[in-house]
């Protein structure tokens, strides 16, 4: 194993291959506070990529209701239990990653779901964390909570799928860091399925190979965001590229949210994969739950998000989510107008932070009638 630096853990760690960063790294921010679990993203992906034989059960994108939802079943709990104590000292992770705790003879600490684990794609949907006892719904704040967690492959900087494959059939693209399974080279050993802690590689029994999210790379190559982004009803997603923390640029939307404002956090950073889908944590969820999912920065992130109203740049940038299908790699704010700029330098979208409000009187003297306002 080689020694590599994982900035999400604030330390070096062991990995199967030496550190080799792509020219740029595809990344995204998902705002969990806006997701309504409509599953439009799930279907957008399904109809585009996984409608074939052997792909019936595959959900490259899925949305689960936390705390109980999980696909495949208990994918998160099983590994969290296997990984034992996951200690942080400040922002430095002092526990072990899935690479460091690999058992003898293995490349990664992992487990392989059984076929029944894929049988309940939306288990726990809308289930609260606690029972709502008589009268509890009348009290505020509610003690019961749930939230929606939308998940795709994290196109990790240290992918466990890639390092699990003894054939080197999985690769990370130099141009954008997207992680792909070479469908010509794969022989269906399912080591990647076992190794990926997020369970985002799926075995296709009809072709005998493993398949995974491709971040819609044919779209990304044309500067367009993936299907699950542009179809998102809740406008919770923003795709772009992330820099290393020391190279963060304040005008790069992803850098700004992840590195500068630190409002968007990786999912289960303690696994050690340096995943590249970043989440704005839910603001109504117990702090310890958020910290288990998103690491020790979750408490601060929730505060920052709650205060976004007073932070014009942050509030403006949040308005850019779901406002254009183009990949926005730069943003600027002039007064109340936010501009999303593409790689080419062209403005992809220009939006006001406050939309004009029109108040229409109920009385319409011209037509001599009274209008009823229906929401």
């Amino acid at each position, binding site marked *: 194993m080689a020694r590599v630096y994982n900035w999400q853990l604030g330390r070096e760690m062991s990995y199967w291959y030496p550190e080799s960063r792509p020219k740029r790294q595809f990344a995204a921010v998902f705002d969990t506070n806006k997701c309504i679990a409509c599953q439009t993203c799930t279907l957008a992906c399904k109809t585009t*990529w*996984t*409608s*074939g*034989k*052997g*792909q*019936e*059960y595959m959900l490259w994108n899925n949305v689960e209701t936390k705390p109980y939802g999980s696909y495949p079943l208990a994918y998160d709990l099983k590994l969290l239990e296997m990984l034992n104590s996951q200690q942080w000292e400040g922002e430095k992770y002092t526990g072990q990653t899935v690479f460091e705790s690999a058992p*003898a*003879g*293995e*490349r990664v600490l992992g487990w*392989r*779901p*059984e*076929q029944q*684990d*894929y049988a309940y794609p939306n288990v726990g949907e809308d289930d609260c964390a606690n029972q709502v006892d008589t009268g509890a719904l009348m009290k505020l704040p509610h003690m019961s909570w749930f939230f929606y967690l939308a998940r795709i492959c994290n196109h990790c900087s240290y992918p466990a799928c890639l390092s*699990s494959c*003894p*054939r*080197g059939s999985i690769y990370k693209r130099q141009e954008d860091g997207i992680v792909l399974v070479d*469908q*010509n*080279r*794969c*022989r*269906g*050993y*399912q*080591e990647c*399925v076992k190794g990926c802690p997020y369970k985002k590689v*799926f*075995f*296709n*029994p*009809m*072709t*005998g*190979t493993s*398949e995974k999210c491709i971040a819609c790379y044919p779209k990304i190559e044309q500067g367009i965001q993936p299907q699950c982004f542009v179809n998102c009803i809740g406008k919770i997603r923003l795709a772009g590229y992330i820099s290393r923390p020391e190279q963060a640029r304040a005008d790069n939307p992803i850098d700004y949210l992840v590195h500068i404002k630190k409002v968007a956090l990786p999912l289960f950073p303690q696994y050690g994969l340096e995943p590249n889908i970043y989440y704005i944590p839910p603001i109504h969820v117990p702090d310890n739950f958020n910290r288990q999912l998103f690491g020790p920065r979750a408490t601060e992130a929730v505060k920052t998000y709650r205060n976004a109203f007073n932070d014009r740049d942050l509030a403006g940038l949040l308005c850019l989510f779901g406002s254009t299908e183009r990949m926005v790699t730069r943003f600027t704010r002039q007064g109340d107008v936010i501009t999303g700029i593409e790689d080419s330098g062209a403005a992809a979208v220009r939006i006001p932070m406050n939309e004009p409000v029109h108040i229409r009187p109920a009385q319409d003297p011209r037509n001599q009638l009274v209008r009823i306002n229906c929401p």
Partner: protein
Amino acid sequence: MKTTIALLIVLLVLGGCRRGPELVPEVVALKTDNLPASPGDSAWDRAPEHVARLLLQDLVEPRQMKATTQEVRVRALSDGAQVVFRLSWADDDLSDAPGPGKMVDACAVQIPAKLSAEPPAPQMGDDDGLVQVTYWRADWQAAVNGRGDSIKDLYPNAVVDHYPFDAQSLEKGSDAQKEMARRYAPARALGNLRAGPREKPVEDLIANGPGTLSPGPSLDSAGSGQHTRQGWAVQISRKLPEGLGGSERTQIAFAVWQGSEQESGARKMRTGWIPFVVRTAP
């Protein structure tokens, strides 16, 4: 009277015992005019048998940590052009349907690509020496035996709403329909040989080290496997290695995967090199 009974018992016991195959310390392909058609063919009764102890794959991660299949029994026959092997091993749990978390039974025969006094590394060859591998799988056998190429053949209770290639606008069997099906089967579209609908249950491969296994030139291979409660009996045929047939000898190795033990790829039981000769029947 007592002596007669004792004599009868001895005769019965002797008559009841079918003579087992001749056991040999190396793999011997006996020359024959008629090659067997299946692992149950009576032609196999004449062939000597080598009992190969299986070892753990312990060279590369993921390693095989648990000793599962203990031994593989190998017989071989050759007509001078082809060589046919019969591999049998104990495995009472039939695994011939692939799926998420489901591995399948398989076996393989490995021979150095070139006859040489110094064979390459026994575990998949090395930089200096290529090995040829003929690989058989139980799910391919099931496909050849008639199992259909649909998810319902693997999961009879599966319900599928619709596939894009079943759209009414696409004429069944037309090029446009096939193209649509290929779009949703990337491994097939790329010609990955392990992804296809199968015509035979074996595949010819080459390797020069662990992790380098790739499709090789045709060895005219064929195969057929039968599973009983005792386990698998699998027949694998391929071209006789070039230069072999007289007094020359080469090396041979075998590997066995048990699907029920989650064995696949590097997780396998395997042998070291075993000397391999062709011999004329006495």
